[in-house]
């Protein structure tokens, strides 16, 4: 579709009278600062430039003037139409708000054969009737899921270990599939499992019902088995065997793996990444441990300071870039999400980096007992007897009542980084998110204090690091990062870029 624009002369300023558009700045080092506008477009400039811009010392004969105007940092009397473009860009960035709630997590059972140090739930000897989701709760939860305005729903079945409650999974899948078809909604289904109970029969069932599998892989055997103990000490062997069989039956792209970084992992970034390469994965998410549930109680075994994680992350990212330079395509997921926010017009579907926070709006968790929580982390807190983010119950509340509950209103008040102290004038605000649940868990306050926030420290450090790589990294590194941001392989990126 062709778009009509006025001739170029209409956009040239006759003099240097300009006004400011909203932007924020951040000192990168002693020489450089970064300016970021409302939509996340950025320029890196010599220190002092923000002040010169704000005090109207940039003249129209300078190249910088045109750059600032083109990237929506300033406007003059000829900029009127460009403001509509800026509004459109803003809308694009926030497209994730449209059609809530997309992700629906069902905790079908709390029973599990593993006793992972960082997990909040371990009911190895629990009785089935006590800790499995009942048919009544499952029916009410599916009905509530289908009321979500989103036309594309993802149903994630997790536990505990959900494969221990296969009869309940089959019931939920059957009513969810027919309900979604009736409501005209698309439905993706994922089972999150440790794969220890993955029989051929279950695999056939997954294949016939287009169900994807997601599992945990914390690294090589010595790390995985230490992090994820089970009777027999063979968690790693079972996970690897399950991944291979699942790929054979379901297809290579129907099985994903996630890792959690424990204190033991911190010393082994290369070994963990090598394990993912050995298992032919092409992405890895270097995830810090969540400060919830047993992870907090067993801090002496698994916990660490954010500084230590960030060292691990940087070493891991360096190694992943090296692998890519050597010809093996592998992405680091968190880096890719941030790069897409920094380098492309799009926002993100990743709820932890959304503002308004994705909690509730983009994810809901239905616990085995019918309790509805804003996020999985909220449910973890509930396991530690903190019910702050329990929005209601599928048995007694409507969707409207969940979203007007005092718990959700309190959460929403701290859900926009645009209005949070420390965030409201942070240059990285468009790249970051708000996480009221993290701050409640770690600081006892949903709004939180940025100066001591692990969330803020992690994102500030990672974003600064990525900006530095984009500015100062080798051509290879820059190409790799651009390839991740634009969802292409390095070869595809290079083939599409004129040399």
């Amino acid at each position, binding site marked *: 579709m062709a778009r009509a624009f006025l001739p170029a002369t209409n956009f040239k300023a006759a003099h240097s009278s300009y006004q400011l558009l*909203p932007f924020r700045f951040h000192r990168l080092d002693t020489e450089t600062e970064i300016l970021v506008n*409302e939509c996340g477009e950025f320029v890196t400039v010599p220190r002092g430039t*923000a002040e010169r811009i704000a005090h109207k010392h940039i003249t129209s004969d300078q190249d910088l003037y045109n750059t600032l105007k083109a990237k929506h940092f300033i406007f003059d009397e000829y900029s009127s139409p460009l403001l509509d473009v800026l509004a459109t860009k803003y809308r694009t960035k926030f497209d994730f708000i449209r059609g809530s709630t997309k992700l629906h997590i069902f905790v079908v059972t709390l029973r599990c054969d593993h006793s992972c140090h960082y997990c909040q739930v371990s009911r190895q000897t629990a009785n089935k009737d006590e800790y499995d989701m009942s048919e009544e709760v499952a029916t009410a939860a599916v009905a509530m899921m289908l009321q979500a305005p989103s036309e594309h729903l993802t149903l994630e079945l997790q536990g505990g270990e959900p494969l221990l409650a296969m009869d309940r999974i089959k019931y939920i899948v059957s009513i969810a599939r027919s309900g979604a078809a009736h409501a005209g909604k698309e439905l993706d289904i994922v089972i999150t499992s440790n794969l220890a109970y993955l029989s051929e029969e279950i695999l056939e069932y997954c294949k016939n019902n287009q169900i994807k599998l997601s599992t945990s892989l914390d690294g090589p055997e010595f790390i995985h088995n230490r992090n994820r103990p089970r009777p027999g000490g063979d968690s790693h062997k079972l996970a690897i065997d399950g991944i291979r069989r699942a790929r054979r039956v379901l297809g290579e792209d129907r099985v994903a793996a996630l890792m959690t970084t424990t204190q033991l992992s911190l010393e082994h970034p290369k070994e963990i990444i090598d394990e993912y390469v050995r298992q032919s994965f092409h992405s890895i998410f270097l995830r810090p441990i969540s400060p919830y549930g047993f992870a907090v109680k067993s801090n002496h075994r698994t916990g660490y300071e954010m500084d230590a994680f960030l060292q691990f992350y940087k070493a891991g990212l360096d190694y992943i870039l090296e692998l890519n330079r050597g010809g093996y395509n592998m992405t680091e997921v968190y880096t890719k999400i941030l790069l897409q926010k920094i380098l492309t017009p799009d926002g993100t579907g990743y709820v932890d980096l959304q503002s308004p926070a994705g909690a509730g709006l983009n994810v809901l968790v239905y616990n085995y007992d019918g309790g509805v929580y804003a996020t999985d982390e909220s449910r973890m807190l509930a396991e530690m007897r903190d019910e702050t983010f329990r929005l209601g119950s599928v048995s007694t509340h409507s969707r409207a009542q969940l979203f007007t509950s005092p718990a959700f209103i309190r959460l929403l008040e701290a859900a926009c980084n645009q209005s949070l102290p420390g965030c409201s004038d942070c240059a990285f605000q468009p790249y970051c998110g708000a996480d009221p649940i993290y701050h409640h868990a770690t600081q006892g306050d949903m709004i939180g204090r940025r100066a001591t926030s692990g969330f803020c420290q992690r994102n500030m450090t990672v974003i600064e690091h990525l900006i530095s790589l984009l500015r100062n990294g080798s051509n290879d590194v820059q190409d790799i990062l651009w390839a991740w941001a634009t969802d292409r392989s390095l070869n595809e990126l290079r083939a599409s870029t004129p040399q």
Partner: protein
Amino acid sequence: MSPEFDRVEFDDEHTAATIYVDKAIYSTSAVLRASYWFSKDLYFHLEEEKQQLRVNVGLRSPKATLEQPLPKKIDDWLPGIFNALVDAQLRVEIQAETAGIRELIIAKAFAEAGVLEDSPPGTFEDPVGVRNTNAPPLVKISNKPPG
């Protein structure tokens, strides 16, 4: 040291200081915003006087500890605080100048949600209105500074 900070008083141990900030240069909002980021290591107390703000600042942990065997003196923090004040004041000024246009951009961005009383003019095919000579301008901009 910058002239606007020539009045800094220290306690005997240099674990606390009082900074006198000229209100004609720095707003209370800027001082609060700058102080916020140091709250991990320092405590702040502000008192407003007629022409200046009195900023009392002290070390949270002035004593040596195993984690911090050589605690910094308050003097070591001052350059960082002064730079943060300059940045914070600049941010306040940029936000004040751009608040109106920011609201307009956001309102236009979400116009479909009914935020605006009147739909913004223009269409995707003709966003500037060049094909419709009778169309009103999309946004009226004045070169007059706000307020």
